[in-house]
């Protein structure tokens, strides 16, 4: 509790109100808990507590073959199974010599950007829900999300737990007509975004609720390893798609929106996500134009058995940098398997952002960080 003193008076006994927000609280996005100390409604101290969903995913993965962990990566950030798959495939592909076919690379980009749309659109919905909007934006978002999930289902058989990527390519090709359907969805998306922006971006209540709340300075954001939209909202131009150019991202023309100021607040985080969706649509359009027929699986062997090596693969997941660190010891099982979950590390600064704000702000700050407990607790 840094530098805080209660007002004490004779004959008046005052103390802080300790509230345990969570693990079942409507807006902690899962089984997350904040131990909050309140002076009135002002947050004086906040300690994040989690681990309720901990299943030691890393330990499980170390006891099974490389491929068998792939479906488990879906369950990390269950909103974005495609990017999780990609990050894991990227790390594993560094362990062996493998060439990924052109079509698979294109499909990976398409899936990943669709995932980004799904995540951002529903995150904005959840965020406004945390602001108290009774779910209207959320349900609009879910309607659009549903269309994209339908596409995922058609491609991979499952809506959320896609398990679609394989080392060296993809599990199966997309069905006939899938690309046309995707183009239809992508072409319609900007119209929806216009409506969404009209509903939210100028609303005075949202503006006054989010601006100046949950300030995160550029220096702290970099030092605390914040990644993704949250980092860019603090004014850092850093996008792994641009920096690493993994996959075939160097072929696409897109821009990375980031804040003009040196301090990011909840409004910046919300707006950066809104703007990023437009860029994702640009990438999707280019990818849908560029994709050609061809094989979707590389020359990977039937058994994945890399030599002794270490690899760290990272992608720009919708929530930030998702990395997989693999240590291979020459067997079919990874010796060490580690997930670098973006929402877990983005929580580092929760306390710094919340202190001095109100309870209602703590909730939206948490919402603007964009956590998924499957990933935080692993």
């Amino acid at each position, binding site marked *: 509790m840094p530098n805080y003193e209660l007002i004490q008076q004779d004959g008046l006994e005052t103390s802080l109100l300790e509230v345990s927000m969570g693990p079942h609280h409507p807006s902690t996005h899962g089984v997350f808990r904040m131990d909050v100390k309140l002076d009135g409604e002002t947050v004086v101290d906040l300690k994040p507590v989690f681990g309720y969903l901990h299943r030691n995913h890393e330990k499980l993965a170390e006891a099974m073959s490389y491929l068998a962990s792939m479906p488990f990566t879906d369950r990390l950030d269950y909103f974005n199974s495609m990017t999780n798959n990609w990050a894991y495939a990227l790390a594993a592909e560094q362990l062996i010599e493998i060439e990924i076919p052109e079509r698979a690379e294109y499909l990976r980009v398409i899936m990943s950007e669709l995932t980004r749309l799904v995540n951002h659109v529903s995150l904005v919905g959840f965020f406004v829900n945390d*602001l*108290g909007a009774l779910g209207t934006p959320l349900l609009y978002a879910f309607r659009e999300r549903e269309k994209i999930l339908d596409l995922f289902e058609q491609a991979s058989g499952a809506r959320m737990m896609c398990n679609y990527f394989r080392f060296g390519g993809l599990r199966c090709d997309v069905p006939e007509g899938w690309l046309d359907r995707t183009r239809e969805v992508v072409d319609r998306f900007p119209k929806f975004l216009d409506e969404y922006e009209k509903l939210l971006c100028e609303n005075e209540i949202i503006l006054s*609720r989010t601006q100046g709340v949950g300030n995160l300075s550029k220096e702290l954001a970099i030092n605390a390893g914040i990644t993704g939209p949250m980092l860019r909202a603090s004014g850092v131009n850093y996008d792994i798609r641009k920096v690493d150019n993994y996959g075939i991202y160097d072929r696409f023309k897109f821009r990375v929106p980031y*804040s*003009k100021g040196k301090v990011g607040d909840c409004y910046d985080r919300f707006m950066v996500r809104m703007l990023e969706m437009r860029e994702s649509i640009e990438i999707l359009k280019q990818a849908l134009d560029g994709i050609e027929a061809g094989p979707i699986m590389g020359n990977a062997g039937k058994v994945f058995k890399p030599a002794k090596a270490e690899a760290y693969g990272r992608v720009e997941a919708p929530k930030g940098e998702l990395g997989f660190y693999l240590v291979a010891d020459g067997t079919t099982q990874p010796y060490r398997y580690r997930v670098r979950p973006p929402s877990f590390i983005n929580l580092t600064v929760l306390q710094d952002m919340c202190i001095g704000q109100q309870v*209602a702000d703590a*909730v939206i700050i948490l919402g603007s960080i964009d956590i998924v407990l499957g990933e935080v607790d692993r």
Partner: protein
Amino acid sequence: MNWELIGDILLATVPLLVIFPSMFALTTWVERKALARIQNRIGPNKVGVPLTPYGGNLSLFGLGQPAADGIKMLFKENIVPTGADRLFHLLAPILSLIPAMLVLCFLPLEFPWLNGEQNSVKAFMLDGAVIFFFAITGLNTLAVFMAGWASRNKYSLLGGMRAIAQMVSYEIPLVLSAVVVVMIVGSLNAAEIAEAQAGWNWYVFQPWGLAAFVIFFIAALAETNRSPFDLPEAESEIIAGYFTEYSGFKFALFFLGEYIAMFAISGLAVTLFLGAGGGPGVEALPWLKVIWFLAKVCILIGVMIWLRGTLPRLRVDQLMGFAWKFLLPLSILNIFIAGFAWHAKKANEGTAVSVIVWVAALIILYAAAKGLDHVNRAKVKPRTYQYGE
């Protein structure tokens, strides 16, 4: 015993006790349905006439939903937390319902079966009806805090505290905006206010009346804990606020109380600004007055639902700031403007002058509101972003 009087009272009050609770039941359905449509859902659509197996063709757009909800509420377990104050925990929901029900009597509802001699009990022609209204609705605050405190739950307590602060603050702009009408009419009697607006002479068509109506409506939203001022029960922050620990029938009572309060305050708004029962055809068919009155109330309720489906919630300090720094100065200014406009109109008979007064008053009020808004939210505005390659 004056049996006739008792009969008259019953004739006047029983309809109130029938109409409004049944309107409550209907409103819950309308609200769910409307919110669903706003959110592009369908809403309740299966519960229809009971005892037809699986709804069948008698689902009637889910009109049976309120009845089903009511039955469910009745049979749910009544849970009182350990360590809660059982007496006050029980009293709170009852106390929140009573004042809301009580003030319904002062609405100028002219039922067709009440005329002539019986008209004397028409809505309890109390001379201080408006004052009495505010006095009684103020009791609601007590019930809410009682619930918050008796639940022995930190969220409830926070909700109760919020409710007190909010209701006390918004009482002031509420009363001040009502004062304008009282001032112009020169009476606190609801029936007289209604009469003064007969024949499209509604106060909402006056610039000061419009401003007062808007202020009154916003304050009424806050008074009845409706979105965007539903802070005492903010589900994303403090679970359900003061009724976190309520279940079953007690919860239903709170729910009922809240909706009846909504009707009551909308009824007052209709009385003060929207010409009470006035509307087309009332001269020929006086019983239409009741219909018009209830229709207007329903429209206001509809707007409340619409707002609830659109807006997020304010923060506590912003909520208070809005009341004290925006609504209060504006409503005080409005009193002066109303006075000036009334005198100007009275001194000069003529359309030109009244149009000038009308427009000038509106411009002054809008400019004042704009200025206050600018002062209060100087730093808050949309931003632009840069792009990196």
